């Protein structure tokens, strides 16, 4: 009598009983090895006094209604295409008027103490949202490279990846996307580099893996997917200003008293609300930032 079957199963093929009992955790763990770490990692972040108490927009709203022309000019296009952007490895080269220029890897950036910053975001187009960012003050990063006394401005550049960014095939803007701040604006505690949204890694359409957030300026100043930060003595050129100098100034502070040449900036539609609300000077952050512009003509310096 030949009973061979039983011996075909090697002891090494038998699932240990403990693994069998914890099979759900085992599956989760294996899945984690296959997925990019960033997509499942929760970002530990502390609360911040700079956050607004207003109700944040839904994750769905924040991640499906975006202006990110590198992935198309439609609001729905970034959510469709931005997944193509490879965010690992990623470095942000910080240099220029710096005593200790340094290229920060994304891993180094994620080691900065992270805070949740719930900020209002006001788009120059007349809509707004409340967004729970996760990030750290830009000042913390800039201090590490030791800006020289000649560092009066900070220039930012978005990565340019024609193979991953279908929108750059057309010269809607002069790529790469560029933005800039005055050094005191850059060092202001409200100005952050965001690496997360709703406690998780930043989605591509929101500017993964690292973006600027300057809540008192129109949204286009908050440049996405930053690859380079340069300290400068002179004011740097900025993308929207180069495209239409009469419509988008270097400062672009939210200002209900200064209209866009083609539409009013006096009010805005908060996403999720039916009727428009009044736009606040400096997007409601006047108490913290109005002092930066004391004595300046904000109509001329729009």
């Amino acid at each position, binding site marked *: 009598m030949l009973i061979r079957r039983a011996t075909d199963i090697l002891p090494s093929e038998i699932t240990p009983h403990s693994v069998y009992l914890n099979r759900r955790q085992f599956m989760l763990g294996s899945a984690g090895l296959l997925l990019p770490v960033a997509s499942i990692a929760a970002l530990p972040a502390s609360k911040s006094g700079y956050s607004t108490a207003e109700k944040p927009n839904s994750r769905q709203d924040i991640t499906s209604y975006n202006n990110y*022309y590198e992935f198309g*000019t439609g609001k729905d296009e970034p959510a469709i295409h931005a997944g193509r952007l490879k965010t690992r490895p990623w470095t942000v080269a910080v240099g220029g008027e710096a005593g200790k220029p340094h290229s920060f890897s994304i891993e180094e950036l994620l080691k900065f103490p992270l805070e949740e910053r719930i900020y209002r975001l006001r788009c120059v187009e007349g809509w707004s949202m409340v967004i729970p960012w996760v990030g750290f003050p830009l000042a913390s990063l800039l201090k590490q490279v030791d800006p020289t006394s000649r560092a009066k401005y900070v220039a930012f550049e978005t990565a340019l990846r024609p193979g991953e960014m279908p929108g750059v095939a057309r010269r809607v*803007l002069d790529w790469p996307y560029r933005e800039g701040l005055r050094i005191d604006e850059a060092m202001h505690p409200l100005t952050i580099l965001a690496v997360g949204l709703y406690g998780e890694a930043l989605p591509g359409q929101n500017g993964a893996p690292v973006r600027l957030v300057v809540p008192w300026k129109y949204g286009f100043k908050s440049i996405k997917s930053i690859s380079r930060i340069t300290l400068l003595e002179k004011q740097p050129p900025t993308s929207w200003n180069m495209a239409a100098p009469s419509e988008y100034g270097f400062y672009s502070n939210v200002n209900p008293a200064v209209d866009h040449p083609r*539409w*009013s900036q006096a009010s805005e*539609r908060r996403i999720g609300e*039916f009727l*428009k609300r009044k736009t606040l000077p400096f997007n409601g952050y006047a108490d913290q930032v109005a002092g930066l512009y004391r004595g300046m003509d904000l109509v001329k310096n729009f």
Partner: protein
Amino acid sequence: MRPTLLSNPSTATVGRIKALLFVLCLLPLAISLWQALGGQAVNPVETLTRDSGSWALNLLLAGLAVTPLRRLGAPGWLLRLRRMLGLYAFFYASVHLLIYLWLDQLFDWPAIVHDIIKRPFITVGMAAFALLLPLAITSTDGWLRRLKRRWGQLHRLVYLLAVLAVIHYLWLVKRDLTEPLLYAAVLGLLLGLRLWWRLRPTMGPRVQ
């Protein structure tokens, strides 16, 4: 031309085609409302504004395409759809305007007047609507009879208002001009053909 069903349909068939067109022309509004009110649109007011404006333009251009298509050999019953296309263009333009007056400006009339004076794209948009209004009012058979030759002269305003409508779109776009330029190209073609046929009457095929 061969007398086929589509070149010489019965009155009843044309009636059915018109009924179909009537329903088809309502679809864009239905889809837009469904997206806006059903939660698919993140910015519902923007969706409704943009869609109603686009369809006002689409239907305006469709109406303007009837005459050139006829001259290029399309069957004559097409002409009997033109009034409905024009009236639907007016309908969508009215929805577009109402959203602006109500959801954008909250019927704040001084602000609206200020907006019309100050913003060129609003100015030309309003002008286009103001020109479209008398055409919609005089679209009935009664007015056609009453105005006689004047009716045709009056309704040539559609050329001007279509140009204004496209300029309205061109001037409101933030940066990417692709779509408004596409509309400008189609309108240029439709008006250019008319001009070509008018200047060289012997060259074009005659309408029977």
